[in-house]
């Protein structure tokens, strides 16, 4: 059975692109959410193998969504990779404090993204 990734971004463009990369270059199944609140709900429902999530989003940002997922038994062990425009160390530190496993910065490099996902999920 193919691994499932929950891709979360409020940007339709980013979702379109990330989904396209995953569908063309991996066998992972892709489900999407457009803000942190929806991500927390979908993660409970879908139980993905990994969450790839933007940080700056309406309703609930990626840090908060990450914390919520870590508090819930069904989602606390799911690897979470945050995607952000900000690459400063302090910002990344805040991400790790919220419970994320990894970080990738925009503009997303497709090869880097696939390699990172494969490092968690295998091919």
């Amino acid at each position, binding site marked *: 059975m193919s691994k499932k990734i929950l891709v979360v971004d409020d*940007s339709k463009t980013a979702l379109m*692109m990330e989904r396209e*990369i995953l569908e*063309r*270059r991996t066998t992972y199944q892709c489900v999407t959410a457009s803000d942190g609140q929806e991500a927390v709900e979908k993660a409970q429902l879908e139980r993905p193998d990994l969450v790839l999530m933007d940080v700056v989003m309406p309703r609930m940002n990626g840090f908060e969504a990450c914390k919520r997922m870590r508090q819930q038994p069904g989602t606390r062990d799911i690897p979470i990779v945050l995607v952000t*425009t900000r690459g400063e160390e302090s910002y990344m530190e805040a991400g790790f404090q919220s419970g994320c496993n990894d970080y990738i910065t925009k503009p997303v490099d497709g*090869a880097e*993204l*696939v390699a990172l996902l494969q490092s968690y999920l295998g091919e």
Partner: protein
Amino acid sequence: MKGDKHNRSGPSGGEMNDLRLEAARKRLAESKGQEDAIEGLREIVANFIGSEEIVLFKVDRRSATFRVFWSFGIDPEDYDLPRALGDAGLQHVMRGECHVEPPDHNRSNAVAKVKAFIPLRFANQTVAILAILRLLPQKVGFDRSDMELFKVLSDQAAGPLFGPNAHSSAAAGGSGIRA
């Protein structure tokens, strides 16, 4: 470049570029009105080019002025387009050519000084100019794939933004700047 599920390595630079161009075209074409087109433009610049300081100037041909139509991440009142571009640069952009300022290597923050001015064309005329004023720190400069994306924006953004099907509800105020 069609999907090859057996090739599980990441997309090559060329394929990644094609994906970006395709996604940008699709996002612009699927825009639902002017506000959504503006959001699409912001998303494309942030996600694919790597900038969060953008100003969109609307060209008023009758009065030969530029008006700030929309901006993101910058106070546009502080920005003088004709002075930034100079006469030659402005004419270049108005003729439909992108104008990219190379990094100033004499400055310590050279990357931050890279700028691009993209004419948005509709019916063979430059109807607006998109100014990208600063890159994200992790983005080292513009490359060839960015130029190809600029061309897509130049050819395909003005229709959803200002064409017959665009709504003008998102039009931001702004002081007129003389051309």
